[in-house]
């Protein structure tokens, strides 16, 4: 049994240590004797995401987000939307999760349409939000995902952040964008 990870846009969405997430996942799986593989999906590759258990999308500069937009609309957007509907697990950073929403509107009104896989949109603001923060993961009913179903018996390996109620420390480096959630549920509450 092999955990199949897809690293999407590793060539352009790798702004600030994002690949560390993939390194961490692979290493932790390796130490627990779980086979895992990472398939990179750069610009130009729009194969189906159906075979993957987890899709990782990093963050990027405005410049790189523009670069990938045309590639996104050439097939990857449909694949991502389908995978989200199927309940495939996504780990996305910054521009990565903004991309899953409907659109991004800059603070001066310029709008960039995205995939619409998640019911959220982003509005930029002038004030940057930078700094370490901790948040508490939301308890309660979480939508069951195939990943959790398959690996439930291996619960002890799950990163602490996955356990409801666990504390997470993270660095939030945002251009000031605020994510407005529609029906999408926030993962936690900032402390």
């Amino acid at each position, binding site marked *: 049994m092999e955990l199949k990870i897809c690293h999407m846009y590793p060539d352009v969405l790798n702004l600030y240590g994002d690949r560390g997430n993939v390194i961490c996942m692979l290493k932790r799986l390796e130490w627990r004797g779980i086979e895992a593989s990472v398939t990179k999906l750069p610009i130009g590759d729009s194969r189906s995401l159906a075979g993957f258990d987890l899709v990782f999308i990093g963050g990027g*500069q*405005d410049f790189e987000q523009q670069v990938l937009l045309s590639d996104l609309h050439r097939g990857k957007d449909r694949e991502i939307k389908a995978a989200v509907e199927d309940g495939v697990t996504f780990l996305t950073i910054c521009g990565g999760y903004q991309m899953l929403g409907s659109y991004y509107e800059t603070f001066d009104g310029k709008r960039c349409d995205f995939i619409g896989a998640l019911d959220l949109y982003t509005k930029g603001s002038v004030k940057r939000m*930078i700094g370490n923060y901790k948040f508490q993961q939301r308890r309660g009913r979480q939508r069951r995902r195939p990943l959790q179903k398959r690996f439930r018996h291996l619960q002890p390996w799950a990163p602490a952040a996955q356990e409801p109620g666990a504390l997470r420390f993270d660095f939030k*480096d945002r251009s000031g964008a605020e994510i407005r959630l529609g029906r999408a549920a926030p993962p936690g509450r900032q402390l």
Partner: protein
Amino acid sequence: MNLKAIIAIIICKLLRAFSRLVHRGGTAMPGRIALKLCPELLSIVSRGVKTVAITGTNGKTTSSRMVEQAFLEQGKSYFANRSGANLISGITTEFVMNSSLTGKCRKEYAVIECDEAAARRVFPQLRPQVVVVTNLFRDQLDRYGEVTHTLENIRAALEPIPQARLCLNADCSLTSSLALELKNPVVYFGIEKGAAPSRPKPEISDATHCIRCKAEYEYDYISYGHLGGFRCPRCGYSRHKADYAVTEILSQGADSSSLIMDIRGEKHMVTVNLPAMYNIYNAIGAVAAVSQMGLGAQAAISALGDFQCGFGRMERFPLGKGGARMMLVKNPAGCSQVIEFLENLREKFMLVVCLNDRSADGTDISWIWDADFEGLTKLSGYLEKIVVSGDRASDMALRIKYAGVAPEYIETEHDYEKLVEWMEGQEKPIFIMPTYTAMLELREVVISHCGGSEFWE
């Protein structure tokens, strides 16, 4: 004469004298206060001084020391801002300290290292004759924002000074793009194809797509990171021929490199008193700068064999039987280059890594995951131990563990006194990789144990 300026100058000089009296550096604070009184003070005190300004992401300090060495050896009347005081406050302080009370500078030349974000405020007042842009890499994104923003900052800094001669890194597509929009006279420096073995495309690159048309770059060769013979297949934007070029790297040792430079058609054999590829770039950039300032290329070439590494840039300390060398790290590109240098050492050594996350280091340490610490796993048999220190020592230990180094090789020591005592007892050479504020603090402790110069000397 501007009375406000004179008062500001007096206050600046007094504050500096006072700071030195109480042994507290005083490199930037006097200038900061003086500028509050007289915001155009830098333009007054820099009037008439022939200045070479060096900016960019990596290599500013090393390049500045190389350039400075040339001025020193030629017996020129000059001063340089030292010790990382490279914002407008520190630069202004240095000019004031080298000026009379009425703001007339006593020196003919100035070698000024300038922070790439500060350049926007500094350059219009400083009006340098020559500006070197070493390279552009992702660096402290919480402080500088995106690399393209830094590029824009530098472009905006240069726009008001179209008469300044630019020395640009030909191998850096980001740096070279400055020439596309600016009217300044430009010369290029770089490493030619074939000088060193080409490398595969890196995992992390700060310029994968054309800055002009966003098509993916093709490369004839890669030096490191995104530096090399780039070419856009769509719009044709490509590496400009280098006026100051390294055509052959004869040898790269643990202490120095030996190369052939082609300077406007003339070939020279050169020894650079520092190892590693990134210092070869610093060297050729320094040659370009010194030459453009009118001192002649030969002045720069002889300086390269003589200059002293300083202030955490491959700086040597007599600690332990094998000695210690301090190599400042600030961002993934620089850090990966240092790790690569270590990979090529063929001797047993100990490694100390000090990670801080204060304002000057970059408060977001995620960058350590972009640096190629995995390279350390190639050093089995040579790397005997890694000691991590600094405010975020635990994060660094974690990173190294995840890079594949067995945990039994990793130790943590938060106390610098204990760390230095440990280093003193070592037989093998020690390489220290600190971030900026960790370097300042550790250096003080090291110097108090074994001597050396204070950071403002």
